[in-house]
């Protein structure tokens, strides 16, 4: 403890390891068997729908909650049995949790004072400068706006330069411009000292742009983790496919197989997926493709071994969103397919009621590991609603900016 709390700032980030961690609340298992390794100095994002256990995971790491089973290691040291104040970890709380009776400056200096830093106030001022709030340092938290409070919470944790910083949706209350700015600020703080950041967020875009590694969590389990681009390109489950961006998913039986691809029968059409991009190669499988990878044509595409196509269907909805246009196409016995088309030419494209075909490069499809039941088309849980909400917020903010 003395070594951790008595010493100055962390020289570098520490790695975090969760081994078989489980957390049961009375009558509810919030986390079941979580294994997770976060390398030192990385920016790790934990992404998932509301109530999936993100905050609980952070609280376990911070020591504010005891694990029911499993071990937690920080920098190779087993901290499972240590208390929160003994762990070299700081948290930016989802609810800010600023001390209402202390000034902003004293709030930020709190951790430094507990560790008997001599220049606590100087460093607190520096941290407040970083979040552009030094001019308000004499105020009490109740006299700040929500976004300002959030920045103070950030400063209060970052000022300690912990080996591991836990961020529980630290930018949720900020407007788009400020959020971008704080994201850059966070990235630079993290890079500068090489601290390890564990960042929890609802915002997939934030996770994708900031993190080295993204883990998608669902119902107390990590569904998939990896570099953002890989997660987006090759989602393994329907949940990930729909939580990170949007996907068109189809289910069907594998009807044929070559040495490096499988062919799936989707409502009578043969859809080819490379074996390297498919999790399962036989039986009933679910395959998918991203809406922006689809090509919309008014005539049936030429038979082409490099192209999958479905159709004809009818356009049921067209919505123009500046950079791209979103089409909904209803294909008989396949269902609704979403297509994003870049607005490259000004030419009027298809409109509602038109008969169209959709096609995509074989290389762009992916096969999921779920069986058809769990992958019911567009698992319409809160995640998609949430993404829609975020999209809408972003759009409104953009409209306001312009």
């Amino acid at each position, binding site marked *: 403890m003395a070594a951790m709390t008595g010493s100055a700032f962390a020289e570098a980030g520490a790695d975090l390891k969760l081994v078989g961690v489980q957390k049961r609340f009375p009558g509810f298992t919030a986390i079941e068997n979580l294994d997770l390794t976060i390398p030192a100095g990385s920016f790790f994002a934990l992404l998932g729908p509301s109530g999936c256990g993100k905050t609980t995971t952070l609280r376990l790491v911070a020591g*504010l909650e005891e694990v029911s089973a499993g071990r937690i290691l920080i920098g190779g040291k087993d901290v499972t049995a240590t208390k929160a104040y003994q762990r070299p970890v700081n*948290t930016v709380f989802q609810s800010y*949790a600023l001390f*209402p009776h202390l000034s902003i400056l004293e709030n930020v200096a*709190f951790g430094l004072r*507990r560790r008997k830093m001599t220049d606590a106030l100087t460093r607190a001022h520096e941290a407040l400068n970083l979040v552009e709030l030094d001019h308000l340092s004499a105020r009490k938290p109740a006299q700040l706006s929500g976004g300002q409070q959030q920045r103070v919470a950030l400063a*209060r944790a970052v000022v*300690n330069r912990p080996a591991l910083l836990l961020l529980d949706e630290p930018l949720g209350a900020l407007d788009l411009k400020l959020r971008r700015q704080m994201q850059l600020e966070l990235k630079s703080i993290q890079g500068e000292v090489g601290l390890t950041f564990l960042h929890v967020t609802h915002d997939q875009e934030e996770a994708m742009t900031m993190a080295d590694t993204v883990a998608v969590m669902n119902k107390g389990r990590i569904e998939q983790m990896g570099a953002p681009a890989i997660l987006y390109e090759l989602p393994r489950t329907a949940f990930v496919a729909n939580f990170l961006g949007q996907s068109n998913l189809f289910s069907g039986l594998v009807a044929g197989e070559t040495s490096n691809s499988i062919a799936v029968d989707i409502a009578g059409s043969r859809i080819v997926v490379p074996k390297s991009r498919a999790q399962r190669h036989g039986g009933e499988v679910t395959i998918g493709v991203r809406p922006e990878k689809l090509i919309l044509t008014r005539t049936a595409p030429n038979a082409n071994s490099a192209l999958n196509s479905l159709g004809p269907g009818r356009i049921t909805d067209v919505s123009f969103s500046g950079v791209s246009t979103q089409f909904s196409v209803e294909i008989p016995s396949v269902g609704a397919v979403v297509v994003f088309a870049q607005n490259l030419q000004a030419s009027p494209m298809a409109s509602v009621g038109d008969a169209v075909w959709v096609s995509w490069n074989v290389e762009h499809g992916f096969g999921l590991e779920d069986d058809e039941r769990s992958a019911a088309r567009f698992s319409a849980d809160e995640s998609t609603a949430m993404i829609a909400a975020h999209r809408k917020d972003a759009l409104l903010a953009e409209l306001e900016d312009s």
Partner: protein
Amino acid sequence: MSTQEAAALATAGNAVETPAGSGRGRKRDSNFGGWILPVYTAVALLFLLIPIAYTFVFSFNRSLKSNISWRGFTFDNWTGVCKAQGVCEAVGNSLLVGVIATFLATVLGTMIALALVRYRFRFRSAISLLLFLPMATPEVVLGAGLAAEFLTAGVQKGLVTIILAHTMFCISFVVVTVKARVASLDPALEEAGRDLYGSPGQVFWRITFPLLVPGIVSAALLSFSLSFDDFIITNFNSGAETTFPKFVYIAAARGIPAEANVVASAVFVLALVVVIVSQVSAAARRRRLAAT
């Protein structure tokens, strides 16, 4: 007398609000809202304030043995309060008992309140319920019961027994007051304190305690005024010792000395000053903060 005064202040507060707040009554019968209510309010206030005014005025009476009829104005009672036999001893006892009992009740009551809100243990709800008993039991019963208990235990009656008795009934009020404050405390604040390297002791003294202070202070003030005020329970358990209320009660038989009025008036003025100062300083603090 502090409770009387609090009641008077509370009534005054209500009275000020009532005429403006009775918009519905005014519409139906403008006369009612127009003058009956203010007159009624004035009468009620007068009724409540006259005894206090009387006490205050007669503290300046050039009294002889009794202090019933007005004989002329003097400051002698104020300058020489302790000349009357027993007044200052009684006040001194009341202050001593009040301070010690308040301290004990506040410390114990705060600890009980924290335990009741924070921890789950057997008989927790039973204890919460039982703590209301001293408030609900008639004071005569409580006083007589305690007296009997002290007798059986063979404890000599005196200041110690008074302090014990007062501590006992004050604890309930402290627990109820502080418990509400503890329950409204956001647990995330203490968690943040722990997360920021605060040991359990540091978290308590730097976060929990400062946040509970308003509740603890009002509990202490309430305890002190209850203790200073108490006559019935004290009378049963004081033996030969005299507190101020007991002194006034005994003196009433042959005429209360004007010095008692002085003490009563002083307490009233002190309470008023405390209230005014705290209000003014709070307003000043708000202004100062708004300026930054």
